[in-house]
Structure formats: structure tokens, C-alpha cells
């Protein structure tokens, strides 16, 4: 069963010193190494700050392209980790170990379908 861990946290990139940044990177590296070692990691991605985001939407049939994130909130989606584990308890166990739990929230969302080589498959 696939779950996506959505990592939400306040964006502090410009405010953090080099040591804090490196500490965060070490924590994420150790986290994904543990996931990989357990055979649970499908994919992980940490995103650039939402200031570099571009959002498209259609308003009255007309395409609007705007700079900035979809929702301008204090905490932003900062990364995703896709894992494959037996059940929600296992997913919650990994979620509580996510490094950003110390400074943000981790949302655990079960997957519905996913693609393998372009073909859709049901999550199971």
C-alpha cells in the first residue's frame, strides 16, 4: 500500500545559517537511508521555496498564469516522500520520524492509483 507523506513547514530558507541547513540535510539523508534500507522508499523530493513556484488556473475559460504558490499560507508544501508499506500504522511510524516533524507537519495520504511505465495501477 502506497502512502505519500506531504511535508509542510514554514519556509525559513533565507533565515537559516549554513550549519542549520547542513544539519537539516543530514537529517533528511539519514531518514531516506533508513527508508531505503527498510525497502519502503519509492521516491522522495524536497522542493524549492514556494517563491519560485508558478501556478496556472483557468478563470472563466481563460488561462491565468501567476507567480507564487497555489495557496499563500504560512506553512507550505516543502517536500514529498512516497513509501510502500503494509498499512497505516507503518506509514504513521515513518511519518513521525520525518525530520521536519520538529518544525512543521507531516500529512499522511493513502494513494489511489499510480503509474508504472505510463500504465495506471490501483494502489494495493
Amino acid at each position, binding site marked *: 500500500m502506497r502512502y505519500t507523506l506531504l511535508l509542510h513547514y514554514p519556509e525559513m530558507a533565507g533565515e537559516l545559517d549554513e550549519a542549520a541547513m547542513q544539519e537539516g540535510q543530514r537529517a533528511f539523508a539519514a531518514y531516506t537511508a533508513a527508508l531505503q534500507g527498510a525497502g519502503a522508499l519509492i521516491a522522495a523530493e524536497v522542493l524549492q521555496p514556494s517563491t519560485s513556484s508558478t501556478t496556472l488556473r483557468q478563470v472563466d475559460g481563460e488561462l491565468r498564469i501567476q507567480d507564487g504558490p497555489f495557496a499563500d499560507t504560512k506553512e507550505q508544501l516543502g517536500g514529498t516522500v512516497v513509501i510502500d508499506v503494509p498499512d*497505516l500504522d507503518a506509514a504513521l511510524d515513518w511519518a513521525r520520524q520525518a525530520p521536519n516533524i520538529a518544525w512543521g507537519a507531516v500529512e499522511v495520504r493513502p494513494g489511489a492509483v499510480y503509474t508504472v511505465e505510463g500504465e495506471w495501477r490501483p494502489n494495493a
Partner: protein
Amino acid sequence: MARAAAELAARASYGRLVALLAAPTGDLQLAEDAVSAAFEQALLTWSEVGVPDNPEGWLLTVARNRQRDVWKSAAQRTSAPLDERLSADPLRDVDPLAIGDKRLELLFVCAHPAIDPGIRTPLMLQTVLGFDAAEIAAAFDVPSQTMAQRLVRAKRRIREARIPFVVPDRRAMPERLPPVLEAIYGCYSLSFADRRDAAAPESLAGEAQYLAVTLAALLDDEPEAWSLAALITLSLSRAQAQRTHYVPLDEQDPSSWDAALIEEGERYLRRAGGGVPGRFQLEAAIQAVHAARRKTGVTDWPALRTLHEALLRVAPTLGAQVALAAAIARSDGPDAGLAALPVDAQRFQPYWAVRAALLAETGRAAEASAAFDRAAALTKHVTVRAHLEARARALRTP
């Protein structure tokens, strides 16, 4: 005859069958439907051919076939390849003559941290005990439709997020057990909650006791689970005496209490053992001290005060604070009790009830009468309000 046998089987088997059928896939709704259909089938068949030797095994077989039929037709409707979990019958190895008990797993699913606390007790009432949404809605004083929707949503969540049917291991138990105890306690609290309709809740205390004893027996060695069973059983021993009108605990005639339930509750409390007492063990011990008056004729107020002090440390609630003040009044006098009442509890009914009684004891009739009026206005419980209004009136007529 067939009906009686079916009802007996229903009481004993419903939760076990639902838990067993739902565990492999997490589909509680389908399991409930299948078990209900099996019970309906039993009513028809058993009255014709007699009750089978193993009624529960018979019900399981019928329910399982029902579940399989639904899976098959679902697979035909969608052209998608049949899910591995569904193509192999997850229950084919279950021996109908030796049905295990997965109700413990089910209780942990109902009170899983990913389930909204407000729906945990209703889920238990429905899936473990077989109450329908309308009955549960009546107990919770909400519209039937609302309760039905909330139950459906919670069950869908259990299936779709795949909340596993497992008993948490030792490491997770301290975190996972309290919400289960809390949900069962919530069922019990409903039985004396402020409400206009006093008929339904009484049986809820019985259901809460059944759940608590089931949980404690299945866990076997969890002190707080046995303590909750003791707390509810001891409180139930006084329920009959309170049926028609409210009498404060100190004024109740102990001979009206149920001696068998007191003994049963004391037995559960002994099972809880003598470790560092938790919240429910302290609350059960408080009930046991009150119940002891049936044998000794007196209430051990110093012991109650010690227990209430310990309870306030473990569970610092407004209720515990008010209860401690009442116990202090018993050992040190009403003025000491009044001084021990919390200061910021103006909207808390028990605060006004205790304050009123203590003011009356100090002889401040006017203040006491006004406080009884406040306490009466803050309760919806008909018999409690009648009692409080009577006391307020008595203080106004010298």
C-alpha cells in the same frame, strides 16, 4: 425458540463475526451487512430445521458466502483485474468450529488515533455490539441522519487508509490504550450525561460495562483496563437505586445497592493489581470506598480525600478539583471545602451543586438557595433538576 437462540447468538457473536470478517480487508460495512444478512437467514432457517450444533460457525459460513458473492459481483462490474486480496478468500483457513476473537483488534481500530475522537464510541457501539445508527443517534442526542453519515465516513476511512486490525505491541500500548479506555468511558458517561431523555442512557451503562470487561479480559494484564471495568461495574451497582428520582450519594440507602455488582467490581479492581495507580484505578478505588459503606455502614472520608488528591495529580480536571473540595469539606468542614473550590468554574454545573450544598451547611441560606438555582439551571437531567430545585425552595421557606 429460534428467535431466542438467534438473539443469544447475536449478543455473543455479532462483534466477533464482524471483527473476523472485516479484519483481512478493513471493510467494516461489508462485514456488518454480511453478518446482519446471516442473522436474518438464521431466523428463517433455524425455525424450520432447528438450531445447528454450532450456531456461530453456521453464521460465519453464511456471512462469508455473502461477502464472497459481493466481491465476485464487484469484480464482474469492473473490468479491472481482481485484487489479490479479494481473489483469494482471506478466511478460507478459518475453522468455523474454532472461531477466534478479533474484537480486541476491532476495539483498537475504532479508537485508532487516525479516527476522530467523537466517533470512536459510536463506532464501537455499532461494530462490536450491533446497534444501528438510529439507536446510537438517540443515545448521543443527534439527528439520525447525521450519525449515520459520520459512521459511514469513519468506516470508509478505516478501509481506505488501511487501518490495520492488530493489537498494538508493548511499545505502542501506552499510547494506544488510553483512547480505547476513553471511548468506552465515553459510552458510560453518556448514561448520566445532562439530557432530557432519561430512558435510553441506563442501558448504555450496561453496554459500557460489557465493552470494558471484554477489553480487560482480552488484554488480560492491563491494570487500567481492569480498573475501568471496576469503575463502571461499581457505579452500576447504584444505578437501580437512582432509577426514578435523584438522591445524592451520601444520602442513598446502601441496602438498595446491588451487592453482586459491588463484589464483581471489587474483583476487577483486585485484578488491576498494586502498581502505580492510573486515573481509572483511582476513580475505581473511590467508587470502592463509597461501595464499602454497604458493609461497614460508614464512609471513610480521609481515604477518599487521599484518593481524590492523587486523582487530581494524575488527571487535573475541573471535575476532579470540585470532587476534592467536596471530600475536604467532609474531613475539615464546609468552609475548608468552599475555600478548596476552583475559582474559574462559573459555568460548571458540579461546581454550583457542591458550592450550594456547602453554603447550606454553613447556614448561609440565601446564598445557598441562589447557588442551587444556578446548579438546577445548568443541568438538563430532569431528576437532578427536580432535586436541586426542591433544595433551593426549602432554603427559601424557613
